[in-house]
């Protein structure tokens, strides 16, 4: 069976800034993998290389066994089935919640308006905001916007979901709503790669936790090991800072 994600010797530089310096890892179908690490360690860049929003400088990315970094790969076609959720939601502000979830189904998957609307409503119901279909993003709270963004990705029937700090821009009391939706997705067997600072979520939901620092993977293993019993000093320092932010 193919890996859902396979990354081999991935490098990414911005000019002389070497952000990723040889990343190797795999995600199996149905797995939830959380990526943690200090700011600037390259977590977002790694995630964005997985769906080629950033073009890697070197190395290979395979999705379900197909090499995305290959010159002949149809990246648009591959991205249709890789959902991505951003820290800043990035909803389309000129469209209602419903239309946000419909538009790519219509324009990319060529579904008819009726079918797209049915799928959109199903997914908006699933993330708990079926009653906000006609609202524009500006009329929704951050937590609601992020759930629309998740519904928008789910409506494309992704085989894989990427989350880049989906709760970092939210007021604390809204974080739970979004995490609940993500937990439900994980239980349904969705393959998920999640950059997050929510250690509780990582501990309970993740099959594996990857700790990154300085553009490399420092530690990769089950949460009980990486969070519960870290082997590396860098991991311990990071976790200490995240779990005890007031002592500095």
């Amino acid at each position, binding site marked *: 069976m193919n890996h859902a994600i396979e990354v081999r010797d991935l490098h990414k530089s911005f000019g002389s800034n070497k952000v990723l310096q040889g990343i190797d890892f795999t995600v199996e179908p149905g797995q939830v993998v959380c990526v943690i690490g200090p700011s600037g360690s390259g977590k977002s860049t790694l995630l964005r290389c997985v769906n080629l929003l950033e073009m890697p400088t070197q190395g290979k990315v395979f999705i379900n066994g197909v090499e995305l970094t290959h010159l002949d790969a149809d990246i648009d076609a591959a991205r249709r089935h890789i*959902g991505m959720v951003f820290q800043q939601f990035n909803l389309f502000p000129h469209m209602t919640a419903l239309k946000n979830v419909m538009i790519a189904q219509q324009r990319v998957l060529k579904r008819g308006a009726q079918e797209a609307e049915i799928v959109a409503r199903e997914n908006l119901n699933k993330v708990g905001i079926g009653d906000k279909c006609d609202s524009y993003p500006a009329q929704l709270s951050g937590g609601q916007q992020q759930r629309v963004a998740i519904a928008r990705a789910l409506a494309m029937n992704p085989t894989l979901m990427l989350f880049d700090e989906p709760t970092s821009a939210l007021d604390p009391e809204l974080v739970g709503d979004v995490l609940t939706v993500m937990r439900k997705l994980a239980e349904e067997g969705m393959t998920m790669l999640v950059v997050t600072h929510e250690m509780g979520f990582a501990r309970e939901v993740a099959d594996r936790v990857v700790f990154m620092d300085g553009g490399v993977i420092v530690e990769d293993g089950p949460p009980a090991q990486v969070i519960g019993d870290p082997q590396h000093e860098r991991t311990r320092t990071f976790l200490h800072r995240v779990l005890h932010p007031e002592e500095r």
Partner: protein
Amino acid sequence: MTSPTTTAEPGPARLSPRKKRQLIRGVQYVVLGAAALFLAFYTDWKSLALFVQPEVAEKTLPDLFTIALKNTIIYSVGGFILSFVFGLLLALMKLSEVRPYRWIANIYIEIFRGLPALLVFVLLNFLPLALPGFEVPGGTYGLAILGLGLIGTAYQAEIFRAGLQAVPKGQTEAARSLGMSPMRAQFTVVIPQAIRIVIPPTTNQFVALLKDSSLVLFLGVSSGFVELAKFGNDVASENANPTPIMVAGLTYLLVTIPLGYLARRLEKRR
């Protein structure tokens, strides 16, 4: 420096800041009033009445509306449509990753923003010299619309460029991550948002084109093709009276003022 002695000294009474502002305001009113008096005194009210002669104003009708205003609107709306379409195209070229596209867009924009509009119109007269046998479709209308379109495109391109760049990059990324091609993402997600952003400067640009349409005069048009400014001037000469020019001016305002109002309304919505 505030040494304690200065405040204690019984010098000339200092004005408080509030009194000072009142005084300055008062002086301004006096100056304005004096200027108004001066104007009223030196204006020759009898000859000023020449500018508003109802009998002469009447002579501009109905041609003022059926010919002059109609032509002004045809020229400027036509020129505006050209500038809108090609301005968007040039803006996309200017933001393109393809370097020659950027060069072409930059060169065009620099040339047509740098040249006086008058010069462009005068040069258009010589177009047949450069392209023998080539006829601009639509005759005078076509040529006038082309002239305004050439100039308007350069300005509109810059307006669109700014508008496109004002749409956050995350919008394109979200669209691309949903599997949209670069073109698809531009047209479904970025351009609709950019158009909202550019409504106010685009309205200004339309007003500028409306005024520049007076330059059509330099294409040597026959009487059926005159626009407001030339029309006002012609009727003024015939009657040896400036009233028609005032009437033409008012007619411009009749279009531009509601337009500005409409633009502010559109801008407020959403």
